[in-house]
Structure formats: structure tokens, C-alpha cells
């Protein structure tokens, strides 16, 4: 029996990615990274800024996300997110732009704890990409 399942990433504008030969997906869930394999129990969770790793026979892919929701059901993984970038397409300048934005946000004083935490996360993740 194959150990592969289907993953679908959607953003508001379009279906970003559909892949059905995935062996494992690692998502940055809100309470820590979470690896999902085939026959995982049905789960709904949401994401914090981080890297989604998709492992498959045809090669691994990494994506940077800022937020989102994951739903896993019947070996279908759906990821809904409003901001997603393929790391392979992301060059230095794009990364710097995002980092600058995130730092600005993190340095704001009038935001609540949660958005502050999320902004800090963004900065952290983007820095590790360098």
C-alpha cells in the first residue's frame, strides 16, 4: 500500500498547489511544528509564520507562510492561507522586503500581545532563511 496522500494549498486568489504524491508534510502549527503522515487523525489547526515542508518522491518543496488554517481529513490535507511564497522562487531582495515589513510591525508599540508575538515569529523565521 502506498504511503502517499493528497495536499492542496489554496489562497484567496487561486488554488496555489495540488499534489497527490506526498509522503509527509511538516506545518508550523500554532502550538509547534507538526508532521503529518498518511492516515493521520482528522484535525483542524491553524498556522503561525513559518515554513511548510512538503516531502514527496518527486522532490521536496519548502514554502514560507504567514498565517493559515490546516484541515486534514480522509487523507486530504487542505491548507488555507492568505500569504504564501515558494522558497525556491524567493530571492534575497523579496526576503529583505518581507523582513523589513515584519520588523516594522514588530516594533510597533500599539499592537496587542498576539500580533506582537506573530510579528516576532515572522522576523525570526525570515532571519533563519538567510
Amino acid at each position, binding site marked *: 500500500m502506498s504511503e502517499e496522500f493528497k495536499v492542496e494549498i489554496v489562497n484567496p486568489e*487561486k488554488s496555489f498547489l495540488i499534489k497527490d504524491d506526498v509522503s509527509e508534510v511538516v506545518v508550523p502549527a500554532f502550538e509547534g511544528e507538526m508532521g503529518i503522515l498518511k492516515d493521520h487523525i482528522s484535525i483542524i489547526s491553524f498556522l503561525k509564520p513559518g515554513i511548510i515542508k512538503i516531502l514527496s518522491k518527486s522532490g521536496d518543496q519548502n514554502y514560507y507562510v504567514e498565517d493559515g488554517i490546516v484541515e486534514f*481529513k480522509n487523507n486530504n490535507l487542505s491548507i488555507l492561507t492568505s500569504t504564501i511564497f515558494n522558497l525556491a522562487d524567493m530571492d534575497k531582495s523579496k526576503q529583505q522586503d518581507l523582513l523589513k515589513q515584519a520588523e516594522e510591525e514588530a516594533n510597533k508599540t500599539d499592537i496587542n500581545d498576539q500580533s506582537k508575538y506573530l510579528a516576532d515569529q515572522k522576523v525570526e523565521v525570515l532571519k533563519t532563511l538567510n
Partner: protein
Amino acid sequence: MASLDDLKKRIASVKSTQKITKAMKMVAAAKLRRAQESAEKGRPYSEKMNNVILNLSNGISDKENAPKLLSGTGQEKTHLCVVMTSDRGLCGGFNSNIIKKAKSYFAKILDEGKEIKIITVGSKGNDQLKRVYGNKIIENISFKESKNANYFDADKVGKMVIEKFEVGEFDVCTIFYNQFKNVITQIPQAQQIIPLNNEGEESSLEESYEFEPDEDEILSNLLPKNISTQIFKAMLENSASEQGSRMSAMDNATRNAGEMVDKLTIEYNRSRQAAITKELIEIISGAESL
């Protein structure tokens, strides 16, 4: 009867109008295809979002303490209406249809002795509503600079709505937009987004989910996103409807202009012939009298 010169000028002016409407029709057709595509591409996201929320709200254990965005504030005193129209005119009944729908809703709410507050998105709606409901409009947003509907803009509107909800400015929120059916038909819609109206929809929940963190926390994170998503969906539907409506309006205008040119041309030819005949009669009768 108008002189020959006048007729000629009129024909020329109708023809140039026809050229413009024809060009606008072509542009609208091209834009329509793009808008329709993005509306279709945007559908999976809002459908999935709806599904997840449906599953979540059914799974919630404590209905009493459900987030207010889902269950409402418990009263229905103040209604916020987000009226979404276009920034440009010349698109047939597109804007008037939304306004008509919105106005009848306003009248109903006011009759019940409740209050309304209006946010207009798009300048055309603002122009039409401010005459009657000027003092009710609390906010006017327009996205003239953005070429296409994008999620960033929708998110701005969504965040504003939520902010107002959290400080208790209103209890119920409804958005007005045109749903795109086809080029000829667009259906004005009134959709309630706060509190979320899920009744009548059966969830496809056969098995229970595991939630991490718990349902309440996910829901309270998800619901604001859903507001933006619904607004974004409305924006996409609206932009497809606008182009469709403009296309059929301009098609009509072009046809009407064509008919008018034909009629004027016949009139022109007739009066020219009349002038020639008159001259001939004059010459002949002049020759006869000699």
C-alpha cells in the same frame, strides 16, 4: 426639417459615440474574462473556509459562550450595511440594482424602529446613497487605484468591520453585492455576515475532528478571517458582474447608435433628394415660362 448640414453633423456625432461604446464593450469583454476567471479561482478558498467553520461551529461544545462573531450580541438593534458598488459608471443597471436592494432593506429595518449605519465601498454607491441616507453613512471606501479586486483590500474592509463590531457599534452586519450569474443576469444579494448565518446548512461531519488548540481558540481566530474572505468573495463577484453588466449595456448602446445612424441616413438622403427635386422643378418651370 433640419438642414442637410445639421443632419450630416448629427450622423457624424452618433457614429463617433458608437465607436466609443464599441470600444468600451470590447474592453469590458476582455476584462470580464479575467474577472470571471479570478472569481472562479477564488471559490475554493471561500468554500473550504465555510466548510471548516461549519464543522467547527457544530463541534463547539458550549454554545452559550461561543464567540460573538458567530452567535451575535444577543440583540438586533443596530444594523451595519456594507454596500459594495463600482467606482465607474456606464455599466447599465449594475449600481442601481444594488442600491435598490439596499434601500428596500434600509426601509424595512427603519420601519422596525431599528438603527442603520452604512459603509459604502465604491464611489458610485456613495453618490447615490448620500442624498437620502447621507447622515447614516459612516465610512466611504474606494479602491480606485487597485486595478483588480485583491485580498489585501478586502482584508482592510474586513478589519474595519471587525474593529467596529468589537467596540459595539453594531449588532448585525449585512453586505450588499451583485452575484454574477451570466453576462445578462446579475442578482443583487444581501448576505448577513455577522452573526454568521449557518442555519439550513447541514454539515458533512461524519467523524469528529481533533482540534489543536481547542475549538474556541481556532474559531475566534478563524471568524475574522472569514469576514474578510466573504467580503473578498463579494468583491470578486462584483467585479465580474460590473464588467458583464457594462458589456451588455455597451452592446445595447452600440446597437441603438447603429439604428440611429440608419434612421438619420435615410432622413439625410430623403432631404437631399427633396432638394434636388425642388431645384429641378424650379428649372423646368423656369424653362417652360420662357
